[in-house]
């Protein structure tokens, strides 16, 4: 068996991280992901909603009854399970960064 890793895709993980601060709607999630990744990740609409659909199916996010600034839009928020999954993913990534850093694979300027 190979090394451990969560079954979250990078986009699903990014969505969970983007929702860590509270409920948000699709477009705001995309903008948040772009900001969080310094533009490295620019999710397209189709992929984004496919990922949201799967996260909803898996119970990692739920539709929020509390609407934000734009009441016309559907807002999504992390479920308790989704927050746990986000934490687990963050721990896994931090561990990987630690390994990469120990192997001197990350330039100092990137840290």
């Amino acid at each position: 068996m190979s090394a451990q890793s969560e079954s979250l895709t990078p986009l699903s993980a990014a969505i969970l991280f983007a929702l860590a601060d509270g409920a948000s709607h699709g477009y705001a999630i995309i903008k948040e992901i772009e900001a969080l990744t310094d533009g490295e990740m620019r999710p397209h609409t189709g992929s984004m909603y496919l990922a949201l659909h799967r996260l909803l199916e898996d119970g990692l996010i739920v539709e929020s009854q509390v609407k934000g600034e734009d009441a016309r839009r559907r807002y999504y928020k992390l479920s308790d399970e989704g927050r746990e999954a986000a934490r687990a993913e963050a721990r896994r990534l931090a561990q990987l960064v630690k390994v990469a850093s120990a192997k001197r694979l990350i330039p100092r300027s990137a840290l």
Partner: protein
Amino acid sequence: MTTLLTKLFAASLGLFPSEFRKSYAGEMKEVFSDRIQSLGTPSACIAALTEILDVALAAIRLRFAHAVDMRPATIGMVGTIVVAAMITASAAERPAPGIRAQIDSIDFNAHDPAGEFTLAIRHGRPVAATIDHVPLPRNRLIHSGDSIRVLGPTGRVVLALAYYHDRGRIEWQARSSGCRGHAVDCTLQ
């Protein structure tokens, strides 16, 4: 121009299954028009093309998953998984597991010297598990390739399985009888 591009994008959403469209098409159109409204015409056209291409790819991925759910050949494949898993289990001299396969899902029930466990697999991904009838949080199911590991409360592996989707086999590392009664947090040797 924005209106025309939004109409083209909306038309491309027809590639998605109707249930998906009912749930998300309205939102997706809004997101698309938000994205392109601040762009000049050439950039908006390029953005629209990439968005439509992305919709096509996402729709294929979703439809493929649905096709896998529905086709008789797939039901046959799931049946193969059931039979092969039972054969694998008996070949390993473990008690035969009970497997209930539904269209796109596998519910695997088995026991070894440490006790009973269950694993639910949906679309090839583990989504739920119990050990000794205790449901485990989903973040303790670690899936990578054909490997599925179940972690205990301390993050140690308490159950390791291999799910060979293409060969229709599920195997696991039998836990020792020493774990009986506390298999939820008993680390694999």
